[in-house]
């Protein structure tokens, strides 16, 4: 592992309980999000307010990519997740972050790219 960043939690299952963060596309189970939030987007405070988990994550995503070395992975860079912590991400989510959370991102000065609609 080229990066010193500690990896995100690894999903503990591979089924329907998986959800992806709408901003960084990190994939974990609902419970994991609820318990420890999103490693890349701590400002969503999912671990504090469980409602946020529903708002900030989606079960509707396509494909999984486990990024072991984000900085040196071409795939991660291509997917624009090269600056996030190592972990399991999804290739694409289909929904956009709710507007209020988008505003939150803005306030936090973090980048948010809504998914491209096909």
């Amino acid at each position, binding site marked *: *592992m*080229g990066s010193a960043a500690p990896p995100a939690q690894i999903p503990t299952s*591979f089924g329907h309980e998986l959800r992806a963060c709408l901003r960084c596309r990190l994939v974990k189970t609902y419970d994991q999000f609820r318990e420890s939030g999103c490693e890349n987007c701590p400002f969503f405070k999912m671990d504090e307010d469980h409602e946020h988990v529903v708002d900030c994550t989606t079960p509707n995503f396509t494909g999984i990519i486990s990024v072991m070395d984000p900085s040196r*992975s*071409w795939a991660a860079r291509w997917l624009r997740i090269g600056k*996030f912590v190592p972990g399991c991400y999804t290739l694409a989510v289909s929904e956009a972050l709710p507007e209020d959370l988008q505003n939150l991102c803005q306030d936090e000065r973090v980048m948010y790219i809504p998914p491209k*609609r096909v």
Partner: protein
Amino acid sequence: MSHRRRDMDDLGPGEEEDEDYIDEEEDEEEADAVRSGKAGGRKRQRSEFIDDSAAEDSEEEEEDDDDEDDEDYGGGGGGRRGGGHRKKKKTASQFFDEEAQVDSDEDEDEEQGEDDFIVDGGADLPDEEDARRMHRRPLLPREEDQEDVEELERTIQQRYARSSHTEYDEETTDVEQQALLPSVRDPKLWMVKCAIGHEREVAVCLMQKCIDKGTELNIRSAIALDHLKNYIYIEADKEAHVREACKGMRNIYASSKILIVPIKEMTDVLSVESKAIDLSRDTWIRMKTGNYKGDLAKVVDVDNVRQRVTVKLIPRIDLQALANKLEGREVPKKKTFNPPPRFMNVDEAREMHIRVERRRDQMTGDYFENINGMMFKDGFLYKNVSMKSISAQNIQPSFDELEKFRQPNENGDGDVASLSTLFANRKKGHFMKGDRVIIVKGDLKNLKGTVEKVEEDTVHIKPKARGLPSTLAVSEKELCKYFEPGNHVKVVSGATEGATGMVLTVEGHLVNIVSDTTKEVLRVFSDNVVESSEVTSGITRIGDYELHDLVLLDNMSFGVIIRVESEAFQVISIIQLARSARVDVDCIPEFSFVLKGVPDRPEVALVRLREIKCKIEKKIFAQDRVKNTIAVKDVVKILEGSCKGKQGPVEHIYRGILFIYDRHHLEHAGFICAKSQACVVVGARANGDRNGHLVSRFSQLKSPARVPQPPGKPHGGGLPISVINALFAAASGRNWGGRGGHDALIGTPIKVRMGPYKGYKGRVVDVKGQTVRVEMDASMKVVTGKFEAFLCARDSSRYGSGSETPMHPSRTPLHPYMTPMRDPGATPIHDGMRTPMRDRAWNPYTPMSPPRDPWEDANPASWGSSPQYQPGSPPSRTYDAPTPGGNYSEAGTPRDSSPAYVNAPSPYLPSTPGGQPPMTPSSAYLPGTPGGQPMTPGSGGLDIMSPVV
């Protein structure tokens, strides 16, 4: 390193550069403003940056930044990006420095760079960089910049506070993404086989393994695609790394081959189409489950996060059942039927004592009627359902369905056929070369043209307007098929599929068509229509009736069914009794139209099925203007009336009216109705001519014969002479002196010699060319056949005339005699027996017998001249009517030509002069075989007969 810079890093790597430049530009603008005028310098700097951005190392730079960033994340300090930090930022000019420094880091190795950044933190770098920067941008004095730093920063901050949102929202452009395309220096993607269904698991496990093993594993990422079963991708520099990583993994088939993904295809691996359906308000969907399964519904609200949608649909509610339930009455458990969709009538519900609450929805502010927990508005049911229970792909609402949705609020949303719905439903290859299209979106809206070429999603059209390029490439989604009023079209999909009609009006992408069959107006999407000259109904049968059947209607008029529709069965029929008319009947299962009219004024009427009395199947004949007989399938030409000059086969004849089918006739499914008197059979001669046709043959053959008709043209051959002879003999025998020609044949008894009616007896009803129409005695059916198919059944006349009876007795005793005395005796006996009999048979009943005698006389081989010969022919005559024919051909002719023959073999060839020398002798020499004997004459007869036919 400035914090500010870090903020920028949060943008995508591609954008980050852009950001920086913009930043810089703006900074400079500020600087310019402050310093008032250094335009030249600014320009130059800018170009420098552009150069920089083009520099090859941009990726490296990013990576460095990335690394740094990762550290940030590692630090986990979310607050770090707070506004407070920003305040402490270094000056804008420092930011420039940094930019420049990054540029200069080109050759630094990644790791190195990372370290540098971490270590330097920022303090030392600026100085060094300042110097460099001065070099590069001598026109931008740094000191001045710093003076205004505070103010500058504020301004910038403001600016960004305002604009940041939009900037963040800005979608990464393709160009930026291009910069990320994989190069040879990037890790490769390897395709590894794994257990089906465990793709995600494998990817996750690899992640876990990497975490556990630390840096041992040199793989960068593992990708499991939802749509690719049995494989995952692993990103690594070397195959060995992949193998290493796969070692010991349960669900990876490490032994199988590991394939490398070509660089060019790497992006394809990651470009995953978001499978999510773009559900938005007003999208048409169909329910997938429950009572409403298959029902069309419209999305009114979408909750993407909870994966639910609110849809409105036409309720299927059994109010009675609901009332029962609410009142606690027994509700039958089994659901035997699904209530039909019907708008909710609140008043009705109230009448049934169903409680209706009117509530305001907090979210939308709309009022809903709440009945037992269900929400209604305007009669629609508003239902919140899971996204999984609806299907939004390929929804093709029919026009009817859409109409229904519009009903309650009449003025309703004009989006009935919203374009989005329309386009979503298009199939591939919707447009074809030559289609007329109109552009419905964009700058070129309303431009018409024709399709020249179709590529994937792009259609090349040839615009009609002048001054435009000869072809334009237009997205399929901006195009619509275009029709003009008057076009004849066919509906190729939707509820009215198969119907044809004429375009009446075009409203956007809707066309109104007058159906050919029902004359009703259909509203269909232009997408569902193709131009066609076809006229069809789709259905060709209804009840016992079929398209193009001639039917009798209850009002005693009749007509031909010209169209049957699924929903309307139309008969084009016509006809008041005395009047000739075209019958166009269109039938509808429930009702149908009959078009009534007179020959020149055909009427089509829509008749109900029950108004059709019966099918008219009888074969009827009519006469054309020149008295030719017209039969079904004869091709006739219309000589007068509006359809003058048209011609076609007669499909039906009834009461002197012909229903003629002319493919080229566009009305009434091609049927033309005409009086038979107004038509002439195509290809027929004048009546007299035609009659003389056969006569001439006869006269040719038997020149001495007295034929009443003048000889016609010499017969051109084709029919075996014997056939004609036979037929004619039969005819002449009967009708001698009466009508002549082929008319003479009419009424001739006949026997069918071959085909399905073989053995049937009948009478000739018509002769035309080489075909004979014979009415079967038994069934009254008229069959048509060639001459060859019939025997002239002389004997059939016998039973008719009664002469047969006396003959039989005489014949029976004949046999015994015949056998023993065959050679010598048969002749006289036969002769004796037959001759009188014949005379008796013929003479009493027909006036023609006298002519016959002369005829016999004229024949050199007649009775008197060759008594020896007679024995043969008479038996055949006796047994079979057609024999005379045989005589003409085989016996008669030789007789005429060779008297020698007649004389010489007389003793031994009594029965078969020409036809069967081998057989006759044998039978002749074996008088002891009585069994064989009867056969001989019989067979002789048959043989003679066969040539006849």
